[in-house]
């Protein structure tokens, strides 16, 4: 059977660079967090932090930042310009979303890489927005004086730290669900490497349209 291309090359390159950059940023971010925890009872163990001390954590974080940001911007520009986002993530209405959430809760929601169901669409749009919010709050944490124009979005330095932490938490939650679903449907992993998959026989999720 002829395989079809479902993940263009730039999407795959983005995905894996992003995975590495995000993991580096989270682990170095935990190192930075530990120097002055926002929540007294939450300290990350050394075994999951990167950089060995605060200075090293900052170096990793602000180096990986460039990989993360440049990669994300290229992805967003290409995703919008090529119509990929429009095709994969839209249309997305509340009716389809509620329908698919209900189906998912009963473990009756199809999950594939061809036609995203409404939950997948919401997840991918959501994680892009979360990444952007984490980026903006990170800019304010990094440069609270020079980027004070952004404080209408994330507040001052002290509140931007909480927004940045919340962004990290949501990204971690996404990663857990994302990886769990790949584990449940392993056939979705191959296309993110090769780009290709067997043609999808039936559009079981046609209700999303």
């Amino acid at each position: 059977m002829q395989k079809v291309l479902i993940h263009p090359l730039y999407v795959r390159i983005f995905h894996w660079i992003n995975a590495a950059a995000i993991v580096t940023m989270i682990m170095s971010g935990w190192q930075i967090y530990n120097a002055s925890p926002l929540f007294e009872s939450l300290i990350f163990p050394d075994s999951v932090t990167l950089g060995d001390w605060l200075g090293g954590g900052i170096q990793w974080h602000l180096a990986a930042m460039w990989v993360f940001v440049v990669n994300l911007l290229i992805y967003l520009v290409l995703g919008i310009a090529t119509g990929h986002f429009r095709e994969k993530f839209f249309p997305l209405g509340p009716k389809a979303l509620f329908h698919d959430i209900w189906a998912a809760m009963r473990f009756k929601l199809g999950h594939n890489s061809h036609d995203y169901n409404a939950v997948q669409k919401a997840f991918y749009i959501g994680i892009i927005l979360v990444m952007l919010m984490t980026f903006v709050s990170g800019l304010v944490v990094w440069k609270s004086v020079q980027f004070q124009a952004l404080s209408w979005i994330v507040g001052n330095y002290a509140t931007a730290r909480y927004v940045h932490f919340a962004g990290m938490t949501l990204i971690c939650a996404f990663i857990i669900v994302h990886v769990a679903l790949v584990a449940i449907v392993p056939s979705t992993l191959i296309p993110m490497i090769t780009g290709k998959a067997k043609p999808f026989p039936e559009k079981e999720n046609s209700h999303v349209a």
Partner: protein
Amino acid sequence: MLLKPNSSQKLLLPRTKQVKNIERRFFMGRALSFGALSMLAGCNVADDSKAQSILDAMSRWNDGVQEAIFGATNQLATTYTEADITDPFPFNAYYSEDKAPDVKEEGYKLELTGLVDKKAPWTLAALRALPQQSQITRHICVEGWSVIGKWAGVSFADFLHMVGADTKAKYVAFKCADDYYTTLDMASALHPQTILALTFRDQVLPRKYGFPMKLRIPIKLGFKNPKHIMSIEVTNEDRGGYWEDQGYNWFSGT
């Protein structure tokens, strides 16, 4: 909460093989397995000067980017009201509070060296006789916490001009009574909110906050605000800094 004083350069270089894996996979653009990601945590691998040199180069690149951002936006730090002042205001240094240097006003003179016309040292009385400016601003520590305090003293830009400093020089370097040292870029030193602070909350700057004087520069992280200043040098040589030389980003603007 305190910074680790004895961290050395080699501590910045962990988990070499995993790092190399990631770099290779950056270029492959795929095949980064979750197994490798999970291995990234918790492995002790020997130092790698290559990884560290990349991180150092990125830190220098970030210095340049910050300088460009600072030049382009050139914002004033937000100022607050008396009611916003953090109380109690924390002591913070690379040593404990009882180790803070006990500088006596009697006999103290601020030394000026380097590219300065009038090198005559300054007594505190002479500095207090100059026009004073006050600010209530946020002090942001590299560790992440922040506090709001009130400082007053001499505008540093006015002071540099008054003593005939070469403001075309690249740096202003500080030496302190506690062997602390740091170097600022000239543009930040000349920022209108940079002051030679002589008081904290309208009282003579106490020993724990940096007597006899502290450079208060709200557009920099806390460790670029030297306390117990003994001498100031205007120079074209980067004299580094106590923390900068251990790996904190040199520019560290806010």
